[in-house]
């Protein structure tokens, strides 16, 4: 929407269009926010109350939260999730930025082919490869280990792709200046490229962290040992064990959602930037 007066539409028409767009946006926002509100609402309701159709709990209670935190090793699940997400994020960014840089700048035979191969994995989703992946991880003896949860999550074509595009957009002259100043590849990567990638690395870090924080299928598959459960597996477990403990599930989900909401509020701008730079949505 431009600030300049349009040549083709009158001011009232522009206002109309704007109103329509805002209404559409408001409806979409409501559709996304409503489940969150519902979740929060249920988490304060008692078990009997859980299915009552009111948004405000009749007799609000903290009992669900107390139960989730004290009666179930939920803190342990949180710690697992935190450890797994943080490790994957740090290790992935380190390798992805190196891979992205190499694919953008180093000349070696087969570079385009390798990039294409990496890129094509974007077309394959986890459920498709989960059985062979499981077999490989089992063969490597990593079932029921942190490594088993972490290592397969590190590779991510999206991160490599995004970083490669970003590095292609950096002016080459800066690296050439560094070459003349006497820097080798490693030094250029470490002292010039990495500092320049801070904004995009921050954005990717958030995306990776959130993705792993919310990961469910793979951690469920690879770790049956309850000590290794991550939060999403823990939440899902309320369903099987207590058939319909919706009030507990929602309380747990609310707790789990808090870090992601906080992250989003703090890093809103970087997240938007990363979505814009990638040209993807």
């Amino acid at each position: 929407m431009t600030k300049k007066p349009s040549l083709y539409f009158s001011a009232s028409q522009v206002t109309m269009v704007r109103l329509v767009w805002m209404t559409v946006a408001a409806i979409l926002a409501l559709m996304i926010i409503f489940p969150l509100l519902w979740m929060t609402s249920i988490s304060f309701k008692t078990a009997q109350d859980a299915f009552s159709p009111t948004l405000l709990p009749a007799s609000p209670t903290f009992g669900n939260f107390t139960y989730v935190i004290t009666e179930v090793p939920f803190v342990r699940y949180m710690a697992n999730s935190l450890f797994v997400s943080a490790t994957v994020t740090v290790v992935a960014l380190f390798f992805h930025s190196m891979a992205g840089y190499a694919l953008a700048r180093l000349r070696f035979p087969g570079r385009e082919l390798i990039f294409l191969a990496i890129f094509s994995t974007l077309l394959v989703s986890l459920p498709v490869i989960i059985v062979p992946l499981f077999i490989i991880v089992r063969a490597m003896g990593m079932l029921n280990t942190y490594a088993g949860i972490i290592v397969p999550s590190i590779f991510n074509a999206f991160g490599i792709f995004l970083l490669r595009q970003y590095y292609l957009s950096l002016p080459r002259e800066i690296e050439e200046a560094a070459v003349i100043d006497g820097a080798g590849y490693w030094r250029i990567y470490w002292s010039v490229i990495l500092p320049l990638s801070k904004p995009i690395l921050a954005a990717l870090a958030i995306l990776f962290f959130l993705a792993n924080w919310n990961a469910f299928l793979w951690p469920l598959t690879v770790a049956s040992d309850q000590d290794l459960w991550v939060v999403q597996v823990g939440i899902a477990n309320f369903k099987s064990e207590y058939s319909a403990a919706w009030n507990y599930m929602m309380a747990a989900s609310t707790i789990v959602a808090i870090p992601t909401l906080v992250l989003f509020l703090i890093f809103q701008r970087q997240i938007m930037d990363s979505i814009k730079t990638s040209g993807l949505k």
Partner: protein
Amino acid sequence: MARVDIDNVVKRYGTVQVVHGVSTAIEDGEFVILVGPSGCGKSTLLRMIAGLEHVSGGTVSIDGEVVNDVAPKDRNIAMVFQNYALYPHMTVAQNMAFSLKLAGVSRQEMQAKVGNAARTLGLETLLDRFPGQLSGGQRQRVAMGRAIVRDPEVFLFDEPLSNLDAKLRVQMRAEIKALHQRLKTTTIYVTHDQVEAMTMADRIVVMRDGIIEQVGTPLDLYDTPANLFVAGFLGSPTMNFIEGRIEGGRFLNDDGVSIAAPGGLPEAPVIAGIRPNLVGLADKGSPFEVLVVEPTGAETQLVLQAGKTQLVALVQGRVALQPGASVGITFDPAGLHLFDRRTGTRLPQMSPS
């Protein structure tokens, strides 16, 4: 300090050859400018000297030693780029110190060298700023500072002023020249701007389409251009070219131009070149029609036409002429350049001056 020898240097990108075997020598302490239209291979040649591009054929030598396979950092060169290429995340001081840090220079020495360079370039108060907080001219100075601290044997500049506005460009031109006077470091400077070349260079290398057209001092090239290209490229306003023939010891054309030519030339079709400032107005000259009058105050530029011949004349002072008026034109025979019409090369003639 060092001399640079370029011997039959070729550059190919895949199957496309862009530099076709050029040879030239840059003497110790000399300020040489590579000039030519955009895309003629100046940057490519400079980058081969820097070691940023692989040399496809021939040799580049610095100080008598072939450096084709020597890494850029070991060539004892420093380069200033068109877009400054400063490290955005480092302060001015860190930018200048980066190469010293990599070379393992001690802290005190580093500070001394950076301080010296900053003083030379008037950057003392900016040392803690980041490049993003500097103006274009200041950035370019930092880029030069980064080159100076290395105390190189050869400075390489690739169009360092083309991102600056006209006024700043004139000022930086003088600063770079003064810097060279003081440091006396061998300098190779690339530009597409013939004014920069004329005003700054000890010697100019004119390039076109990957070959060297002519090498010489600015005034040599101005006075005796080897061919039509060099004649038209150097000097502003551009030299006038008039098609005609040599006949009876004179240059003649069908539109009434007649200029005394040096003796001993065969009668043949030629192109005459004459600089606009050597075209004069006189009542009994060849008749021309005035098309455009452009007064600039001190001098007046006229565009003139007779038949198919169009000329630019640059006359001192002001003239009371309107477009459409008729005027007589004379040519200073001492300023007449003659070129073969087929090959475009300068015709051998006795130097008139």
